[in-house]
């Protein structure tokens, strides 16, 4: 399977490294970052690509643009992991549309295009007879989309609830365990590289809400948007609140919930018993799916990371290869 890789940041690098290291039957035939591009229909030499990127900051020739890659390169699937604004979805949405238009499969880790234009993009993919997959957008390495589509097929999904933001979970874990104030825990999260310089997107629950929208639309196809989510962040929580919860055998976590029957679409800090399955430590993510037949299923795993996210992307790619090879 030939792939074109858009973006060579943390996730793109993880994908390239794993494709190089593991015998997956995947060849990278084109790669682009924000400043340059590189094509080799016979397969890009990955170690020299990564070395070049590290040394010069460019992956290839500054004369080759992303648009060139999408339109001209030889590939079966586009792996779209370019730096993208999750609130506008650009430039990633435009790239995905162009590749689907060329009847190429697309796999992305970018939340913006899926949460804003998911319905359109899915329809376009269907029309063109190709796949559009985005396992990596929600809960990192946790294969929730695959579970919903396959393992739980035939089940009616009644509700979902989970911890979808590792940064918030890390901050709350540290506040509970060490009695840190919110500001202290945030500072620590920044030092560990878990929080951005501007933490608003994480701590006010925006990131979790976008992931909740993606999951909700993937399951129920209800066309929800970020603005439909009732959202409360963790930035006003106090160390005392965590202590008061602790005295009661409980703790506080930022929980995303969706249940169409009760019209709940919400991200908010909630009190949970400390032995509740969604109470996970550090940057972990957790997700409980409630269905009519299987009842509750809880998944716990890493929500971010270079290789962890690559796991979700590669899972999508190999699924596409198997599915479409069988059809052909």
């Amino acid at each position, binding site marked *: 399977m030939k792939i074109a890789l858009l973006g060579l940041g943390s996730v793109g690098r993880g994908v390239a490294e794993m494709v190089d290291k593991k015998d997956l039957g995947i060849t990278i035939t084109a790669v682009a970052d924000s400043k340059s591009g590189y094509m080799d229909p016979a397969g890009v030499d990955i170690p020299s690509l990564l070395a070049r990127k590290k040394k010069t900051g460019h992956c290839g020739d500054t004369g080759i643009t992303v648009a060139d890659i999408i339109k001209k390169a030889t590939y079966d699937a586009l792996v779209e992991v370019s730096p993208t604004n999750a609130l506008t979805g650009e430039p990633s949405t435009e790239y995905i549309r162009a590749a689907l238009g060329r009847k190429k499969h697309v796999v992305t880790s970018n939340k913006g295009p899926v949460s804003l234009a998911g319905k359109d993009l899915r329809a376009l993919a269907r029309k063109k007879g190709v796949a559009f997959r985005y396992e990596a957008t929600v809960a990192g390495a946790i294969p929730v989309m695959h579970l919903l589509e396959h393992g739980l097929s035939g089940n009616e999904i009644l509700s979902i609830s989970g911890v979808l933001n590792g940064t918030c979970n890390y901050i709350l874990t540290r506040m509970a365990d060490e009695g840190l104030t919110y500001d202290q825990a945030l500072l620590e999260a920044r030092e560990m590289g878990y929080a951005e310089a501007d933490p608003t997107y994480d701590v006010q629950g925006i990131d979790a809400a976008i992931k909740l929208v993606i999951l909700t639309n993937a399951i129920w196809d209800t066309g929800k948007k970020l603005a439909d989510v009732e959202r409360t962040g963790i930035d006003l929580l106090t160390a005392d609140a965590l202590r008061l919860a602790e005295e009661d055998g409980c703790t*506080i976590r930022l929980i995303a919930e969706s249940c169409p029957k009760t019209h709940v679409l919400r991200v908010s800090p909630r009190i949970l018993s400390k032995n*509740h399955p969604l109470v996970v430590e550090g940057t972990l993510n957790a997700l409980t799916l409630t269905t009519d037949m299987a009842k509750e299923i809880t998944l716990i795993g890493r929500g971010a990371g270079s290789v962890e996210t690559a796991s979700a992307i590669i899972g999508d790619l190999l699924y596409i290869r198997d599915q479409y090879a069988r059809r052909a």
Partner: protein
Amino acid sequence: MKLEMRDSPGQLVAALKPISDVGGNIIAVIHQREPERDHDTLSVQIVLELPEGKRDKLIKLLKEQGVHVQRIGEKRLLFKRTVILIGHLMHTDLSDTVDRIDSTGFAEVSDLAMSMPAVNDRSSSRITIRAVSKKDMASAMTILRQVARQKSLLLVEPLEDTA
């Protein structure tokens, strides 16, 4: 609950057994001999907690034991929910916040724990609310959410119900 039964050996135990049979919890048994009454019968007051919907079954079982139920006084506050409120709790009149729940008549604040940081810092409190039924608890929570919004307090609710 006030019961009347024959004053003979084993009768009190016979009256208590149906309570545990229906999943009830006996909190107190008050047993007074009233001199003016005839000595064939015994009057007993029992304070107990019963799961919802088990009242009629209990009365039926007691009747089968030959126990007469004189009176049932109900104050059922079986649903419990613990929330955390964060903000300027004192400046926004905490006793009024509590009173808004207590004055409903169907729910009450049964426990309150509070932190007292520096004067201008936001304080945090843990509040346990008890209500008669699930529906009343939902109404109490609606009131509390309104109060929290009015007073710009952060209300942290439990993810799951505890009965």
